[in-house]
């Protein structure tokens, strides 16, 4: 994730002198071309999803952060609390989509290859088989009313894999502080509508062809160490 630091200085009152630095965010590049995930996800969707939707979350998150900074400096408690929903929505949108781009990989680069090693064994232990896990994620994703995400999560505390859903752009951590996202599948309509229309189950069935299990394995091994 690229960071750009913007340093803004408070007035230099004799008793109190400090720098206030506000870190804002930029849209991360995709590690593959827009069309590289076809036919599972069309290039048109990937382009809009990245350049429009994710960019809007980044832009509005930065705006909310600037407003938050101002409210915190002024000691405006009401203002700080009022900004929370914009921060959760736009910040969550940025966090979730940044994970999502890593969760996908073109077939030619290993997308769709099933997980091996520690994650593979953990999946078999906690779900019985990879097929059972995929079936569970697909059914929870299809059943989600409205917009949201379906996650394969590692519960660091209980040392167990779980499938969770979150509404809108709520990040996975809102479902449990010890949950680490390994895989997230975006089931907002913008993620599939142009190609699959209302048939979300087809999108869910096909996305497994481009899922990047290597990334999920790396996160799993790092977080379960």
């Amino acid at each position: 994730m690229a960071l750009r630091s913007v340093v803004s200085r408070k007035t230099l009152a004799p008793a109190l002198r400090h720098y206030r630095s506000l870190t804002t965010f930029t849209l991360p590049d995709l590690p593959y071309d827009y069309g590289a995930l076809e036919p599972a996800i069309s290039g048109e969707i990937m382009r809009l999803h990245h350049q429009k939707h994710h960019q809007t979350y980044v832009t509005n998150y930065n705006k909310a952060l600037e407003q938050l900074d101002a409210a915190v400096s002024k000691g405006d408690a009401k203002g700080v609390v009022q900004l929370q929903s914009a921060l959760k929505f736009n910040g969550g949108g940025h966090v979730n989509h940044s994970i999502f781009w890593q969760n996908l990989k073109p077939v030619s680069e290993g997308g769709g290859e099933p997980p091996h090693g520690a994650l593979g064994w953990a999946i078999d232990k906690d779900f019985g088989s990879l097929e059972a896990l995929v079936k569970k994620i697909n059914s929870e994703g299809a059943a989600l009313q409205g917009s949201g995400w379906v996650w394969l999560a590692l519960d660091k505390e209980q040392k167990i894999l779980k499938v969770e859903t979150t509404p809108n752009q709520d990040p996975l951590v809102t479902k449990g502080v010890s949950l680490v996202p390994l895989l997230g599948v975006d089931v907002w309509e913008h993620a599939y509508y142009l190609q699959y229309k209302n048939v979300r189950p087809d999108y869910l069935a096909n996305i497994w062809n481009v899922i990047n299990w290597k990334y999920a394995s790396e996160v799993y091994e790092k977080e379960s160490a």
Partner: protein
Amino acid sequence: MVLQLVMAPNWCGCGVASANSTKISTNAFKMSSNRFNFSKPYPGRAYRVTAYYSLTTPPYELDALEPYMSKRTVEIHWGKHHNEHVERLNKHLKTSAFYGHTLEEMVKATYNNGSPLVEFNDSSSVWSHDFFWESMQPNGGSMPKGGVLDQIEKDFGTFTNFKDEFTFAALSIFGPGWVWLYLKKNERKLAVAPTQNAISPLVWGDIPIIGLDMWEHAYYLDYKDDRSAYVNNFLDHLVSWHSVMVRMMRAEAFVNLGEPKIPVA
């Protein structure tokens, strides 16, 4: 409304349910007259009529809203999304305690003051989508006239202010939702509000006047991510001020919007 004939051993009914009610009262029927030409396959047995909801048709052809809302969008939005809610609602109703409620009653009851019951999502979606199709018409938009315009100018200042507020509310929604022009019963004025997911002003007791679906499936095929173009086209070319007038007239039966104008002799 689809009526189904079901055999029930214990009570008698020989009439056809009226189109307006979903619940058949046992007192309503008399066995004596043969007014109703109602063929009974098993004479002497009693019948119970059950009724479920059906997909109401928009009051225009599916391509009538082009180019502002494509035929493709209406076909999928109405034929798949709206239809799916109707089918799911009917599935719930087979075992639900709310069978027999009108749709509006069911929406209010199943909202359950913010802890919605399982039937809420589908019943509210069915109600809202029926309302949505009827909020639009071919060659809609432009400006309302007469009493409607007067009320809008009274409550928003100018018509442009109303449009700006409506648009701002529509674009402020986080995630799926709706934007409404509605009549506040207690304050006796029009207002604009956005709602999340399937919620409508019915749940807080006010009277909806215009409903615009802001779920992505409502506009994505035609406008992709450009929500403001969708809302502007709705206001400028689709909104049915005729429906608004009819709804305001009906609302005045429940809310006194002003002193009656009594002509001086």
